[in-house]
């Protein structure tokens, strides 16, 4: 099975984690809802459930 070839493991391991961390969390955090319609980049939620991060 080509997945078990040890050659590209380190490259895939490092690059995948790095690319994921640098690309997706910045995107997700842009959609963080807030109670303020001015500061939020998305629509103003009628039910302001507290977004679970500090």
């Amino acid at each position: 099975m080509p997945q078990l070839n040890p050659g590209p493991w380190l490259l895939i391991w490092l690059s995948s984690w790095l690319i994921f961390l640098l690309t997706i969390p910045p995107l997700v955090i842009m959609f963080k809802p807030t109670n303020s319609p001015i500061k939020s980049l998305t629509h103003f939620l009628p039910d302001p459930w507290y977004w679970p991060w500090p």
Partner: protein
Amino acid sequence: MALNFFDQFMTPIYMGIPLITLATLMPRLTFLQPTSQWTTSRFSTLQSQLLNSSTYQLFAPLSPKSHHWALLIVSLMIFLITINLLGLLPYTFTPTTQLSFNMAFALPAWLATVIIGLRTQPTHAFAHLLPESTPPLLIPILIIIETISLLIRPLALGVRLTANLTAGHLLIQLISTAMFTMIHTIPLMAMLTGTLLLLLSILEIAVAMIQAYVFVLLLSLYLQENM
């Protein structure tokens, strides 16, 4: 026709450039950037609604201390869902079929939950190694079994995702090869195989989304145990 059906899972390298890095960048490009307008487009609203509702679903049962992990876990979920779905398109490479890719996310995340559990509430973390009301004779064996099951968790996480996606892609290739071969000789069988292929593709779309969600759900459960 590929001589070896597993050739589709070889890490593609073109002129010295590993294309898996390019494939990993694809999910970022499929998401809309939020604008500075107060009312956004329907797609943007849908996207944020899906993000918020899935975050709520995942983190409602968890303690408030675990909510610090929300960004990481939700990002991982949409990352895996997008990669899995993009991999179902023809001529694309699915990074999540690589065990190394999935282990890169499973092992550090699981290890982090275990370390957090051992640091913040060590007694509670060790107590998980023995279920309640165990007969005294079984205690040593059960502790060994529970320790093994704890240590096998990252492997199970990674291999589950890898195996599900690899099997799905293999099945699609096998059935489409069979259909392609039979279409000139036995057209009726080829049509039935084609219907099977269509149903399988629908199943694979479901599996792609479900497996990503299961990966992330299990991580949140391991976090719930340790926090």
